[in-house]
């Protein structure tokens, strides 16, 4: 069976699963569901072109469209029906499409294009775009929903999840902080089945990198535009990206710039790393890249917050680490029950069993910290401290979970017959990455 048939089969499975769901009787849920199942109703899967497109401006609304605050009064850990449905759908995609292809993508340092297209057709990008621009965004900020999506995708594979979500992050930033003109120019493309490959570039190649002290700089030109110079590291999907969102220092502090990949002065070199290999990470150099005045995200006015941007980006990595930590736990339980040593399953030994308990405890803590910060961000409340704590926990415990997972499989964990060595490599990224993604 060809890959395309497999993908169609998957799409039909979603359709079948959702068709029988009573939740679809609720008109509000139905609207979101329609976006999610777009892939299932499509007749085929087209590959995304690598040449730069001409971004055509949609009719420009008078003012930028902003997602509203989401929040409840009571402590609650139950996702909404809509969130649960999206989560289940994405989890199905991750299990059936990402996990089986993960090792090959890791080796190839690339996620297959038909998989990226299938992921785009799940409608995750469209969910970030306001209705007025052709998208399916609800009225509320979708940080928590995006965290659930990232978690579910990373349960399949973290590297491929990064590849799938890199463009979504750019759409999120445009929806949250873009000017009316920037939204009208770029956002409609993200509702398309051929959504532009794009990525956020923040990290720079040096030790003790601090996203609040950027070497990459944007200098004002006499013509009112900017000249961008600097180098970014581990940018996901850079070689095929049509659009970058680049963090650079300005006299007014760090800011983000929308840079089309066709601009003169951009050079891209592959930068394969310990992990995240399916996301085709690369170095991107900007040598005196000329940008128009409209390249500054938010136009230097309004409510752009670099602090919140960095914190929400870190939360995306937290959510991915939660999904991968859960994947490790789910893999270890049957393995340790089936693996026999000295006449009984190794899970009968406390040294093994307690390790499993600790993985479960820390993974659950990682999830709760990530959710708390995401929910605060969605509600428009201060969340930088909570995001920092989530990142600390996910970076520290995530790496330990990766190491423990390999250890529990012993020599089998060290070879590529099992996915745990990949999780070991991928989970290390959480404490390092800045930018790349955004919830």
């Amino acid at each position, binding site marked *: 069976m060809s890959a395309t048939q497999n993908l169609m089969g998957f799409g039909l499975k979603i359709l079948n699963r959702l068709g029988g769901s009573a939740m679809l009787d609720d008109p509000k849920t139905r609207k979101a569901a329609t976006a999610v199942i777009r892939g299932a109703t499509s007749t085929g899967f087209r590959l995304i072109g690598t040449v730069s497109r001409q971004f055509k401006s949609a009719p420009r609304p008078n003012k930028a469209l902003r997602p509203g605050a989401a929040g409840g009064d009571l402590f609650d*850990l139950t996702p909404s029906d809509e969130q649960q449905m999206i989560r289940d759908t994405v989890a199905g995609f991750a299990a059936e499409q990402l996990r089986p292809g993960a090792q090959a993508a890791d080796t190839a340092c690339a996620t297959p294009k038909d998989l990226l297209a299938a992921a785009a057709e799940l409608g995750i990008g469209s969910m970030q775009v306001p209705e007025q621009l052709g998208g399916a965004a609800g009225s509320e900020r979708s940080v928590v929903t995006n965290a659930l999506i990232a978690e579910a995708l990373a349960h399949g594979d973290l590297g491929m999840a990064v590849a799938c979500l890199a463009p979504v992050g750019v759409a999120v930033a445009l929806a949250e902080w873009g000017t009316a003109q920037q939204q009208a120019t770029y956002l409609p493309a993200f509702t398309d089945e051929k959504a532009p490959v794009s990525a956020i570039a923040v990290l720079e190649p040096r030790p003790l990198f601090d996203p609040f002290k950027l070497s990459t700089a944007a200098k004002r030109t006499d013509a009112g535009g900017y000249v961008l110079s600097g180098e970014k590291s581990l940018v996901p999907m850079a070689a095929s990206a049509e659009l970058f969102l680049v963090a650079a220092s300005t006299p007014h502090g760090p800011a983000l710039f929308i840079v089309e990949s066709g601009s003169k002065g951009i050079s891209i070199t592959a930068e394969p790393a310990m992990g995240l290999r399916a996301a085709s990470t690369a170095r991107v150099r900007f040598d005196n890249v000329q940008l128009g005045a409209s390249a500054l995200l938010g136009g230097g006015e309004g409510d752009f917050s670099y602090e919140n941007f960095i914190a929400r980006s870190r939360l995306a990595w937290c959510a991915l680490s939660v999904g991968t930590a859960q994947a490790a736990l789910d893999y270890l339980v049957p393995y*340790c029950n089936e693996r026999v040593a000295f006449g009984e399953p190794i*899970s009968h030994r406390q040294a093994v069993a307690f390790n499993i*308990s600790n993985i479960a405890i820390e993974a659950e*803590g990682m999830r709760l910290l990530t959710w*708390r910060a995401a929910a605060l961000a969605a509600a428009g409340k201060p969340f930088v401290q909570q995001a920092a704590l989530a990142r*600390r*926990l996910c970076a520290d415990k995530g790496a330990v979970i990766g190491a423990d997972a390999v250890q529990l499989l012993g020599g089998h964990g060290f070879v590529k017959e099992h996915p745990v060595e990949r999780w070991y490599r991928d989970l290390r990224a959480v404490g390092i990455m800045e930018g790349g993604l955004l919830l």
Partner: protein
Amino acid sequence: MINLENPKKFRGLVSQAQQVAREIFRPNSRKYDLAEHEYPKELDILGALLDGMNASGAGEGAGAAGVRRDAVQDQGNRNSSNMSTALGTMELCWGDVGFLLTMPRQGLGNSAIASVANDEQLKRFAGRWAAMAITEPHCGSDSAAIRTTATKDGDHYVLNGDKIFVTSGERADLVVVWATLDKNIGRAAVKSFVVEKGTPGLELVRLEHKLGIRASDTVQFALRDCRVHQDNLLGDPEINVEKGFAGVMQTFDNTRPLVAAMAVGLARACLEETRKILETAGIVIDYNRPASVQTAAAAQFMAMEADYEAARLLTLQAAWMADNRKPNSLQASMAKAKAGRSCVDIALKCVELCGSQGYGEGELLEKWARDSKILDIFEGTQQIQLLIIARRLLGKTSAELK
């Protein structure tokens, strides 16, 4: 709607508990740490206050009365007594764990009575202070190995055995004693009996001298032909091999998150104090910049705070699940394990970060570090929690995973 903030409706209760902790617990903390075994009479008025809160608050009080799972079923998300009790406990233990443990009429025995007593017993034991006697000299975590016997004799049971580590054993009016009807049957034969202080045959043998929580008395009892009326047996008098022990252990499903909440409160006290002391040394935590570009003290503080936050949210998760009638045995153990070990780790590191200020008796940090250790031991040690969690996750029986 996913939301992990404390519900607004408990703000009043949390603020009351915080005032008690700040105005009454903290100022007396060192006094009763030094004067071990002396009764903290300042707490009498508080006991009365809590009685009032529990009576009027429709099960949303801050004490031991809050853990009963009422029979009411309703739809939708609930934030109820398990959560409010956990939140209140966190605040009070931010003040002093020892005082919380010796709050009049808020003993672990009260929790047992509130959780499993019948209506007649509830009425009869109302307003009494009840301690809990489980541990024996030869058995701690292995409570199914209890040797104290209960022998039926007419309308009475005759209790014989030794009980140690009974919190509030000296100050309480009642002692809930765990005893076995038949040593050969094991768990299912273990029952709990309410023994009135002054009952002939119940003898207080000694008061312990401890590492921490010195404001709370810990005693050893001897039971010698101690006759208890059958109406004082809590729960089902029959030996039901199917679910006998579960009944007794049910108390723990409800109280483990509360011990976790104690640890969370203590950890927060340590972190707040340490933050203040570090600020006098010019260390301010920057939550935007990476830990690796800040001082080692700041980086360590953030790591501790992250562990604290995980312990706190796991505790609230367990309480929230109980409020919503979801089985929470796994989450209760996860909360207890994480909170117990984190509070010890945090307290000891805070002492180190604050140097001689942390180690000396001039501040309370060294006391909190001593107090913290018990929280990783009682109501199920770290190791027992890990065992419970592992058995659940791996689907193992206690015979398979020992």
